[in-house]
């Protein structure tokens, strides 16, 4: 039960972060190049992603031994989770600029607005930009859905959590439209990074032969340990940043 809930939360959070980024691109394409092309591009990309899950999900379950699957999946989750966590810690401590969706949106609108428009029918630029943006951001979601869903045997739960995130982010995105800065992206990235690293450690270790004490409950212990390290790292690096800024001449 604990594991299933954590999986649903991790997939929801990861999908929400990626969908905010995809939404920025679709909004920019829709406003500058027309909504029809942008929505068709986004729709086709979502369809492609669903096909990838439907084709690779069952195939991986049937043809790959569970231990091998867990090692590969655990390793992928660890790499992805550590990348997210590293970036979120560096941003939270001021060593890396925060991801500003509003600035990205403005840049995209300016760039797309300068390109020549189609006189009638579908706008190829808007369609392609929207399709590529949703496909690339969505591919990360698909990887997370497949890896978390397959290792735990809860592919349906993971898929539904991702779908829920898509619906929630789209609804909120349409409501707030251009205020994407309000989404606490770094905090979400940090929490999801912690979850991915915990799941990655658990399954990667289990596939490699580690016997976790307390079975699924170890996930909570791993989450707590990594959260404690993250809290300490953010504090330490923030202090170091402030100290370095104070020592700068002038």
């Amino acid at each position, binding site marked *: 039960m604990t594991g299933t809930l954590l999986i649903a939360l991790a997939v929801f959070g990861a999908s929400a972060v990626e969908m905010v980024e995809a939404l920025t691109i679709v909004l920019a394409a829709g406003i500058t190049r027309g909504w029809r092309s942008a929505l068709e591009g986004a729709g086709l990309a979502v369809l492609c992603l669903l096909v990838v899950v439907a084709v690779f999900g069952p195939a991986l379950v049937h043809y790959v031994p569970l231990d091998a699957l867990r*090692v590969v999946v*655990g*390793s*992928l989750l*660890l*790499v*992805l989770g*550590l*990348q997210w*966590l*590293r970036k979120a*810690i*560096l941003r939270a401590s001021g*060593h*890396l600029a925060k991801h500003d969706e509003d600035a990205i949106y403005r840049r995209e609108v300016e760039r797309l607005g300068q390109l020549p428009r189609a006189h009638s029918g579908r706008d190829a630029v808007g369609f392609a930009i929207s399709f590529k943006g949703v496909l*690339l951001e969505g*591919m*990360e979601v698909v*990887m997370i859905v497949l890896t978390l869903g397959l290792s735990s045997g809860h592919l349906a739960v993971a898929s539904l959590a991702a779908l829920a995130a898509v619906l929630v982010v789209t609804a909120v995105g349409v409501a707030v439209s251009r205020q994407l800065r309000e989404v606490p992206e770094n905090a979400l990235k940090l929490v999801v990074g912690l979850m991915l*690293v915990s799941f*990655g*450690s658990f399954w*990667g*270790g289990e*596939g*490699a*032969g*580690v*016997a*976790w*004490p307390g079975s699924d409950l*170890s996930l909570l212990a*791993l989450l707590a*340990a*990594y959260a404690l*390290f993250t809290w300490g*790292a953010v504090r330490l*690096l923030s202090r*170091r940043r402030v100290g*370095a800024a104070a020592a700068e001449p002038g």
Partner: protein
Amino acid sequence: MKRWPGAFGRFCYEFVVGDTPELAVGVAVVIVGAWALSRPLGGADFWFVPLAVVLLLAASLWRGVRMSGR
């Protein structure tokens, strides 16, 4: 059509390695280390994975801070 495999390979490389090759290599070392340790210890090596992951993240953060200062 011929460009698809190359583009897919680049996407996979960016996805797994990107600008943090130390994490990709480190995770491989963690998994192989856990596998090597679990044989003689009979699965009683659960402490290794979280410890190695924390050390790996600390090393990558250190690299990130150094790079951000340049």
